[in-house]
């Protein structure tokens, strides 16, 4: 039972990180970019390949994967930023398809559809993160770190620039913000988060293959961001939790049949229902105040 719970928490943590990245792009900056699955895949494969072919440890793979993803985010941002909203969205989807195709076909590097097995679990000074519990801790430490980082970004000049662009790009331009640069940074930063998620995923499941990094995957992340609250860190975590638990609940209730089809059906319904009834998601743009646990006061902080 604990193993199951730990497993769930690990998956939620991984998706929470990726969703935070999505929120930086979509929630903070208002860019309808949905390429997270591609960046997630790039992070995963980078770390896996470094570990398997060069024997580099997780602690090298993690920043490497994150940076690789960030680099591709930067490039994608540069290439697509002059497109209007609708076209930008399609371009990012196209990028996911392209990356998945490359992962499938560049067999010399990625072994194509056979995937990369036997990715090692991380180890630190002799201690190996073999158990679910230990890995869960690792994941959530990173979630906390990245969450804190995201909050610091939000409160910084860069974060305010993101939100200014979201609220009114022309006004932001008029205020002297280099909107092009800031938007590309947003995509790149979001990609970094996804890359971290990818590395965590690869070293947890110890096997990756291109099928995990599909258009559907990127839409799931979108769902989590929308549901949780576009622009909220706690929302990212909540959205991920909700969407990972929901199909499990379905299964407990006894909904049989191909799980993935019903799960995807659910995602479609959630997307539509969420936007129609509560477009701000569960948390909207508010954050859970951890200080409330210690010092009292309101539980929710509005940005």
């Amino acid at each position, binding site marked *: 039972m604990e193993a199951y719970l730990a497993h769930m928490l690990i998956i939620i943590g991984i998706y929470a990180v990726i969703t935070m990245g999505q929120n930086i792009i979509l929630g903070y900056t208002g860019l*309808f970019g949905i390429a997270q699955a591609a960046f997630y895949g790039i992070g995963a494969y980078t770390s896996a390949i470094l570990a398997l072919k060069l024997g580099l440890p997780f602690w090298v793979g993690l920043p490497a994967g994150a940076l690789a993803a960030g680099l591709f985010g930067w490039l994608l941002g540069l290439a697509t930023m002059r497109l*209007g909203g*609708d076209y930008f969205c399609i371009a990012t989807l196209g990028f996911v398809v392209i990356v998945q195709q490359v992962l499938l076909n560049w067999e010399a590097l990625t072994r194509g559809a056979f995937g990369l097995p036997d990715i090692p679990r991380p180890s630190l000074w002799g201690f190996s993160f073999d158990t679910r519990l230990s890995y869960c801790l690792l994941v959530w430490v990173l979630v906390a770190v990245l969450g804190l980082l995201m909050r610091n970004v939000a409160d910084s000049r860069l974060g305010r620039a993101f939100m200014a662009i979201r609220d009114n790009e*022309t006004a932001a331009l008029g205020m002297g913000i280099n909107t092009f640069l800031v938007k590309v940074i947003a995509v790149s930063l979001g990609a970094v988060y996804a890359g971290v998620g990818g590395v965590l995923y690869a070293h947890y499941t110890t096997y990756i293959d291109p099928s995990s990094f599909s258009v559907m995957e990127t839409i799931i992340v979108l769902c989590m961001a929308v549901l949780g609250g576009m622009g909220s860190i706690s929302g990212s975590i909540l959205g991920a939790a909700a969407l990972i638990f929901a199909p499990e609940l379905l299964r407990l209730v006894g909904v049989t049949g*191909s799980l993935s089809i019903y799960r*995807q*059906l659910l995602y*479609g319904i959630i997307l539509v229902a969420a*936007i129609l009834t509560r477009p701000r998601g569960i948390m909207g743009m508010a954050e859970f105040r951890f200080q409330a646990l210690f010092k009292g006061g309101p539980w929710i902080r509005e940005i």
Partner: protein
Amino acid sequence: MSEFLQQLVNGITVGSIYALIALGYTMVYGILMFINFAHGEIYMAGAFIGWYLMTQLGLPFLIATPLTVIAVALLGVVIEKIAYRPLRHASRLGPLITAIGVSIFLQNLAAAIFGTDPRPFPLPSFLERNIYEVGGVILDSLQIWIFFLSILIMIGLDLYVNHTRMGKAMRATKINKQVAPLMGINLDTVISLVFAIGSGIAALGGIMVGLYYNSVSPTMGFMPGLVAFTAAVLGGIGNIRGAMIGGMLIGILENLGAGYISSGFKQGIAFFVLIALLLFRQEGIMGKVEREKV
């Protein structure tokens, strides 16, 4: 030379179908400035409903087809009413997200109901594919039917939009959505009608594909949807004649590319065209360059 003509003929056939689907995209975008991501799934619904009516209910082709068109037109109207209309005045993001949601929903609904395996599509006897050879090029009767039916629909739509009152209402709404109601145009009716027509035509496209490739599957909407969208952009999104031209062109390009470069390249061609368009000429062939006014 005959190789070239052969690919041309095949390209025109497929292109006609792409054009029909592209019309739905372009009409909706023209009026609402919104890309209906779910349109590919509407086309798939047409194929499946047609398949269902003909194989499970045993209805003859000439009854099943109009019924399918009506059913899918209604589906389009219902989707607009539930998922897009409430968001008409909201931010740009809302309808895009719901469109993706609807697309996923429809695709998986079809998979849940019909299963994920492709099904063969029944061919009525009067459409039996007789093969002709003209100057070294092999044609079959179904290709001719598809081409002429598509042309007929396109001419019909063009006449409707340009020579009827309702068509005028649609054009007016396209020009200025806020002023049109002041002129006595019922916005809801016009929009519903646009969705109905676009969806009905796409349904026909779905049936044609079922007949031509003898196969329907729940995932058949994604790629053709993307290709048809590219066709719409190629022709100038929002421009009905452009969609027709764009569809034909893409069909031809796809087949020429598959024939002369490689068949694996087929899927990539539409993508390639789309990327080129987005980078160099977003307005497409017949579109106008729009300057954003602050």
